[in-house]
């Protein structure tokens, strides 16, 4: 029942073990981020008022998400973290409960599940549709998807890739061909059967899509093996393949959706999920009712579930307080502060996730455009940026500034030579540069958002203090993204990189995706470091866990040297519920192990229930 692979060093030779490329050990901790969860707008220091992750609410580069699986996106961020705000941790998520309840029990039902009732969940954004090949899913998209669809693979609480709708995902000896075997007897909401031909049709639609095709560039072809099995031939050895199936390209949809999409009409979701689509009015609500034929016996517990997008964080919190919704999602660290320890509420955050890569907030520097193409300038900007002060100003003082891609506790974590805040060193570097080229002028850009505007103003002051001439560029999201893709920027605030496995971020860091300014390139920072490329290529096919970790530690260190990204912190997501909603962070997988409870604003809905 596990994803099988030869690449799991923990169980070398044990083909029944779950594959966790590069992960430490099974007791290790928390799980990675579901790939493909992209965020728009910004979240880190808090959501934008108008549109959160969206900037707002939406999904822009989520394409990549689906795409590289590695999350994409935009806007930006700032410090986050919330250290110390949670009283205990569980599978990488921090959980607290108001009153005297056990802190560790928040979000995990402890009583007897109760069938029936309905729940209303308030999301941070709205989606643009349910069709995986063409719609952009952010956190809300994956919430909806977990309601009416099922992923082939889910991320376990230990970070492993676990079969979900797939019965097994098995590699050949050199990890170049992965065979996905579907569970038998599963039907879609329209009554059609889940078969290998449906999965193949899914693959064809996803591969042909300009949006999701990039995520499947790693797959050369798919072939039907038998009525329930499809063999995916990768372009080379790829031990991370199962993790790609946790992303947008891993959610299986009925062929009726393909037919509807080909007719240019909106595709009503047809899935195998725990709930069946009932109604959707964009920006108002999405309601689904219990799937009486769900393949997981006994689930779901709820008769119906409704999602209400409420973009403004304050209003979302107020709505929870009035009892109009049962649970809210938030990417604003202040939400944790507002509800932590308050009687009557349960708070779960992703604060202590350490496996895979968290969603990072950072300032991205263009390594191909003056003056940030000069390493001394990037070093000076790094030395001049006080991430701790930013965290105090905008993250409630809960942030732990980052010095690399991976947080302490992650198997991939290792100390780096990332520059510390040192204004004297920054001034010295600026003087060196100025002696040759004059005072460096840097344009710092972000998207239109009141909070982000304050963040960049603070950074502007920091950099001006060490001798830079800094101007601000605050523009709309579409223009912002266009500029990032074409390299028409110097310094941009950004939020990106959440991934179940680092390999899903390959396209963002690869030297093969760099383009000259003005040309489209997915390596937005244009950081051309052959050592990074070499390490990532090696890691993709690496079956030895220690060696794979070393590869990504190498990548991390090279970023600390190259400085295409000035780290601010990680994005902190939280879900806050009343005491009636139970088990919103206690999902159990088909094999009885726990799923990652809460993943960058995404949770599973099948096992939630309402207390009497």
């Amino acid at each position, binding site marked *: 029942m596990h994803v099988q692979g030869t690449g799991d060093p923990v169980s070398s030779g044990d083909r029944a073990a779950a594959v966790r490329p590069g992960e430490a050990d099974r007791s290790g901790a928390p799980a990675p981020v579901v790939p493909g969860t992209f965020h728009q707008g910004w979240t880190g220091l808090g959501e934008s008022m108008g549109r959160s992750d969206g900037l707002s609410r939406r999904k822009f580069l*989520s394409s990549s998400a689906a795409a590289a699986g590695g999350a994409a996106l935009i806007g930006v961020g700032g410090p986050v973290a919330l250290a110390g705000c949670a009283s205990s941790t569980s599978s990488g998520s921090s959980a607290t409960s108001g009153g005297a309840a056990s802190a560790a029990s928040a979000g995990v039902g402890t009583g007897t599940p109760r069938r029936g009732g309905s729940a209303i969940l308030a999301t941070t954004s709205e989606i643009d*549709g349910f069709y995986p090949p063409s719609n952009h899913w952010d956190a809300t998209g994956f919430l909806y998807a977990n309601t009416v669809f099922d992923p082939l693979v889910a991320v376990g609480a230990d970070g492993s890739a676990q079969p979900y709708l797939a019965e097994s995902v098995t590699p050949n000896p050199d990890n170049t061909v992965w065979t996905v075997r579907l569970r038998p007897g599963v039907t879609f909401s329209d009554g059609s059967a889940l078969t290998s031909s449906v999965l193949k049709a899914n693959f064809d639609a996803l591969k042909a899509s*300009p949006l999701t095709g990039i995520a499947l560039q790693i797959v050369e072809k798919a072939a039907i093996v038998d009525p329930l099995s499809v063999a995916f031939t990768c372009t080379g050895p790829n031990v991370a393949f199962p993790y790609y199936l946790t992303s947008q390209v891993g959610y299986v949809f009925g062929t009726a959706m393909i037919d509807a999409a080909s007719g*240019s009409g909106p595709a009503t979701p047809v899935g195998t999920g725990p709930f069946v689509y009932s109604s959707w009015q964009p920006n108002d609500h999405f309601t689904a009712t219990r799937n009486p034929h769900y393949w997981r016996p006994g689930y779901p517990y709820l008769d119906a579930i409704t999602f209400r997008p409420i*973009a403004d964080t304050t209003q979302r919190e*107020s709505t929870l307080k*009035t009892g109009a919704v049962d649970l809210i999602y938030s990417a604003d660290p202040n939400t944790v502060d507002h509800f932590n320890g308050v009687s009557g509420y349960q708070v779960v955050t992703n604060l202590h996730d350490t496996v895979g890569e968290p969603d990072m907030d950072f300032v991205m520097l263009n390594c191909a455009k003056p003056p940030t193409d000069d390493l001394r300038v990037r070093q000076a900007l790094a030395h001049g940026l006080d991430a701790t002060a930013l965290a105090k100003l905008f993250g409630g003082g809960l942030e732990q500034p980052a010095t690399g891609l991976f947080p302490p506790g992650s198997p991939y974590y290792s100390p780096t030579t990332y520059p510390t805040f040192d204004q004297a060193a920054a001034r010295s570097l600026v003087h060196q540069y100025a002696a040759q080229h004059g005072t460096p002028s840097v344009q710092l850009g972000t998207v239109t958002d009141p909070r982000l505007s304050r963040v960049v103003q603070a950074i502007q002051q920091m950099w001006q203090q060490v001798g830079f001439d800094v101007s601000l560029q605050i523009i709309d999201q*579409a223009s912002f*993204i266009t500029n990032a893709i074409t390299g028409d920027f110097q310094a941009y605030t950004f939020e990106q990189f959440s991934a179940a496995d680092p390999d899903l971020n390959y396209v963002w860091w690869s030297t093969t995706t760099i383009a000259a300014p003005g040309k489209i390139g997915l390596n937005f920072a244009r950081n051309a470091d052959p050592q990074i490329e070499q390490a990532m290529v090696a890691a993709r096919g690496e079956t030895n866990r220690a060696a794979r970790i070393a590869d990504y530690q190498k990548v991390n260190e090279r970023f600390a040297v190259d400085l295409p990204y000035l780290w601010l912190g990680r994005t902190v997501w939280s879900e806050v519920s009343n005491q009636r909603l139970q088990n919103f962070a206690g999902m159990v997988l088909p094999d009885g192990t726990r799923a990652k409870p809460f993943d960058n604003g995404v949770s599973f809905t099948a096992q939630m229930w309402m207390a009497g």
Partner: protein
Amino acid sequence: MLATYLLKRLVQLIAVSFLISVIVFMLVHLLPGDPSVTILGPNDTPQNRAILLHQLGLNKPLVQQYATWLGQVFHGSLGQSYLTHQQVTQIIGQGAPVDVELIVLSQLIAFAVAIPLALVTSRRPNRAVDRTATTTTFGLLALPPFVLAPILVAVFAVGLGWFPATGTVPISQNLATNLHDMILPSLALAVGSIAVYYRLLRSDLIATLQEDFITSARAKGLHPRRVMLRHALRPSTFSLLAAAGVNIGSLLAGAFIVESLFAINGIGLALVDAVEQRDYLVVQGIALVIAVAYVVIQFVVDFIFTVVDPRVARG
């Protein structure tokens, strides 16, 4: 005379609507970027972009695109969203009634408060009641909806629990609940109008009450209430009506903000999303409908002017 006047205004309405459609079309296409950025994201390669723009018809000359779109408009179609594939008319059909209800309710609240208040205070200007009302409304002018809404929610929704903090029940589902849910959003939008309407009407009433025909009415022994309601109010409403008509534009903008703050699904959210994502047809469709609605409202206000004061029609 009246018919000629109305006909002239109707022609102007059509001309203005056409001009607006051209301007909106051009402005939308002048924005940097295009839908391919949103739809394709990082996969916005030249090849993919070319295919997509061809599929969307965006590779054709602007004039041809405009002509195609206008032709569809005359056939009752505003096109389809590039992203959600929803018909633009459907998007507007879902959202517009919410905005209309919001604006209508806010104006009813504004008139219901402003007119009686002005009638009371104008009878005895500069007294304590008048000064209190004037000072209060002056303060309300400085309270935009985005400031007032969180306060209303904190007090009446979270604190007292009288109203929901966000969302409404559709009017088709339950009228009473819908009206109850719309009170806070309508109030947030109405407060600015209350202040403006009150101050205008109060000033005009004070001036009117100095007129000879009011003195004459009083000399005849008419009851003061009758003097105010039957003789002073009507000629004093000209500025009020003019302000109400002009106010529609700002109310629409305010309604969009209120929608966002109260998570009400009007066309404002759809419009903002469409602009961000360069969903041209949605932007054009909504902007056209808003513009035409605005012009029609002005037309109606002008018509009411001719009823209130027939000299307007005479020119």
